[in-house]
């Protein structure tokens, strides 16, 4: 037996990983967690530097408010992790490549991007959850990944129905929604349901922990297809889950909340303090290191140097005095007319498509008008296509790229050829599928 000192790896293992790419000449991606989607201009510049040095200058905002880089050389990963460690940044643990269960972690906690600006600020809760669960040895071996969203603006800007646990602020507490998931794993596409209770803010962290403990203890560990929390909620039902939570935490206050409308993006407006916010639309979330630096500089020049990402792959400038000046400067470098609610997954890198999600998005998004649009490259549903007014999900049959069409969560047409997609959208405008903006 030989023993080798590998102590320097200890601070990285369980906190950092690379994900698997299989397309576009990339073999690994790096998904940088941005809790609540909030970061400062200095950190954004550092991320731009990582993108430039290690990721061919490419960077993408994900629909979980992360930043994702590609073309990462695994031989350089420890150097990247060291830089991230110094910045207090962590990654998702990309354990989805394992064929077994129990490689799941708590993913980036998404928040309303305007917390504290147009509603109460619970970003502390996102940070507390992130601090406790990221890299915690007890919680990086969950049956499968676990996704959390928090919103306090009264609208669904965080894709409430797609998360394992969404916390929706209502009057003086959080109303939890549970068991959402847009991928094909069992029981298939499932919209998160209300638990019918309300949690006071001071008890929310313990509530979140109890839900995740239940996932850890009771979700299926034999089959990866059944290991998501949505399958447990589906098989148990809401009442049994609520009873188990009450057994651990005591009785909850009953609460009825009208189900929020699906799929909002905050575009521009006035904050509580009279300053303004403005959201830059970024089609498919695709950026580069140069524009990340520009965004950092403009956030300092026009606001307080803070940037917030959205679940529609856009970014928000907050605390802005001169919105028109900001828009003028941005218009030199960005197309401000691209739609705000248009999401495409990273299928150009994962290798599951021939005609990629972002290609489809770019080719038709500007024709979508006020309709929201999401393109997932495969049944894993990474773009949450069932939550959009118009959703497409890709498949390859006999070497040919096809897409299925969803309208507001309902499958309306299967096996569409790529060249038919513009025509289908024309049908939608004409009301063939009864979609109204």
């Amino acid at each position, binding site marked *: *037996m*030989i*023993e*080798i*000192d*590998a*102590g320097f*790896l*200890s601070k*990285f*293992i369980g906190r950092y*990983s*690379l*994900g*698997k790419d299989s397309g576009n000449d990339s*073999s*690994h991606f790096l998904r940088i967690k941005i809790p609540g989607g909030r970061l400062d201009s200095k950190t954004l510049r550092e991320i731009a530097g990582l993108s430039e040095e290690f990721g061919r200058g490419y960077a993408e905002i994900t629909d979980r408010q992360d930043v994702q880089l590609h073309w990462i050389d*695994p*031989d350089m*990963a*420890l150097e990247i992790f060291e830089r991230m460690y110094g910045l207090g940044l962590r990654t998702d*643990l*990309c*354990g989805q*490549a*394992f*064929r*077994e269960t129990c*490689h799941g972690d708590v993913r980036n906690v998404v928040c309303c991007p305007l917390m504290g600006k147009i509603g109460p600020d619970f970003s502390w809760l996102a940070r507390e959850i992130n601090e406790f669960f990221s890299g915690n040895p007890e919680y990086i071996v969950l049956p499968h990944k676990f996704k959390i969203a928090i919103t306090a603006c009264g609208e669904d800007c965080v894709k409430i129905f797609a998360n394992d646990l969404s916390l929706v602020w209502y009057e003086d507490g959080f109303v939890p929604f549970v068991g959402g998931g847009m991928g094909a794993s069992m029981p298939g596409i499932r919209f998160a349901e209300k638990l019918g209770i309300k949690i006071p803010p001071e008890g929310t962290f313990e509530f979140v922990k109890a839900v995740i403990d239940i996932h850890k203890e009771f979700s299926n560990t034999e089959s990866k297809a059944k290991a998501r929390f949505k399958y447990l909620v589906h098989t148990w039902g809401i009442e049994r889950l609520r009873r188990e939570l009450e057994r651990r935490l005591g009785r909850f206050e009953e609460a009825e909340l009208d189900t929020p409308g699906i799929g909002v993006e905050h575009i521009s407006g006035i904050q509580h303090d009279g300053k303004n916010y403005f959201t830059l639309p970024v089609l498919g979330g695709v950026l580069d290191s140069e524009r990340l630096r520009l965004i950092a500089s403009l956030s300092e020049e026009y606001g307080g140097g803070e940037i917030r990402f959205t679940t529609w792959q856009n970014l928000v400038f907050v605390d802005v005095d001169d919105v028109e000046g900001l828009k003028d400067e941005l218009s030199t470098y960005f197309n401000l007319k691209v739609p705000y609610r248009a999401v495409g997954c990273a299928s150009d890198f994962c290798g599951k498509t021939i005609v990629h999600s972002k290609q489809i998005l770019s080719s038709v998004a500007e024709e979508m008008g006020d309709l929201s649009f999401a393109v997932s490259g495969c049944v894993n549903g990474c773009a949450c296509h069932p939550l959009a007014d118009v959703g497409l999900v890709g498949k390859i049959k006999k070497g040919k790229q096809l897409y299925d069409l969803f309208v507001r969560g309902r499958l309306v047409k299967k096996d569409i050829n790529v060249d038919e997609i513009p025509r289908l959208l024309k049908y939608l405008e004409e009301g063939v599928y009864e979609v109204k903006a």
Partner: protein
Amino acid sequence: MKLKLEKVGEKYVLDARDLTCPFPLAMTKLALKEVDDLEVIVNNPPSARDIPAILGKQGYLVDVERENGLWKIRIRKESP
């Protein structure tokens, strides 16, 4: 943290199961500073893809055997 290399016959064995990328690769490289004949056991498909590809390019002799959901990657330094 200590890496343990167990001697089994001619080779040393490094168990890198349940580790995400890039740690099986990083540990393999550390181990190869100490031994010339190594078998790495992984269950992470990207690591099973990367380790043979990267070390093969660096001149090591690499053989991969798949067994019950695991990959056993035998890595030897080429004779001079």
